[in-house]
């Protein structure tokens, strides 16, 4: 049985997809992120809004559709997330 992901882990998955797994250089669509990060449309819409507002993702309009790319701040956050995820993991915890 797989464990539920925390809010922080879902953010980590979205940012990782936006950094490492983009379909093209303009960014990833919501549908693509839903599929890759395995999250519902309602939930990802709210999270993407927050991530763009925090400056972790960049939103671009391409052929009438919203696309998302990771920003420099997002890259730094993801690096810190990965480091401290391992640290918390060492204590048997998830961040």
């Amino acid at each position: 049985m797989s464990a539920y992901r925390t809010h922080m882990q879902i953010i980590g998955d979205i940012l990782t997809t936006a950094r490492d797994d983009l379909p093209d250089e303009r960014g990833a669509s919501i549908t693509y992120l839903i599929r890759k990060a395995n999250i519902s449309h309602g939930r990802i819409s709210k999270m993407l809004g927050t991530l763009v507002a925090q400056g972790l993702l960049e939103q671009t309009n391409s052929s009438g559709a919203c696309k998302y790319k990771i920003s420099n701040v997002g890259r730094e956050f993801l690096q810190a997330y990965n480091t401290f995820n391992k640290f918390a993991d060492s204590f048997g915890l998830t961040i």
Partner: protein
Amino acid sequence: MVELFFLENILNLVGFAVGLVIGIISYIGFKNTGSPTLFRLTIAFFSIGVGFMIMWLGQTLDVFVYKTDQPTRWMQTLGIAVQTVGYFFIAFSHTIKSFFPKSNYLRSIGIVPLFLISFISVENIIRSISFILLVYGAIETFMSYFESKRRTVLFVAAGLGALAFGEFLGWYYFVFPQSILNVVSISMKIAGLIMLFVPVTKVPLTKIKFDETLDDA
């Protein structure tokens, strides 16, 4: 007696240093990610560090300032109590809910051993709580190894286990005060604290850029 004083001094200083360093790293992690888990770890390890510091201060003042043979009990009790708060937050991070059974009957039985084991002093009761929290934390941490397969998890589980065993041996010292058990207990605790420090050595702090704008992320 002099060796015991130095051993206890080393234990308290190592405990303070380990608690402080892990607390600072957890705080940096919390500031960078906003993770509530890292916030709980921050409180836990700062409490453990401060608890050891209080005990060290009490012991040092007794020997060098007040020049008494016996340590000031209230300061030792306060130090242990502050440490127990830290152990509570480690156990709480492993979801403290599973610690308490749902049945009212089992709940009542679960509390009884705390009073049966020791009713002599507040210090003993606090040590009992510390022991239970440490054992719980050690078991939960060890169980998580089967999910992550990370070797540092084993060090942390063994560290918490060694602290718990040291606490357990500390009880026997109250029953047999002249035995070698206190030295073994203190040595176990020092070893436990050193093992807790292992995950810190794996954090590449030079690559982390501290960014205060990420508080609410």
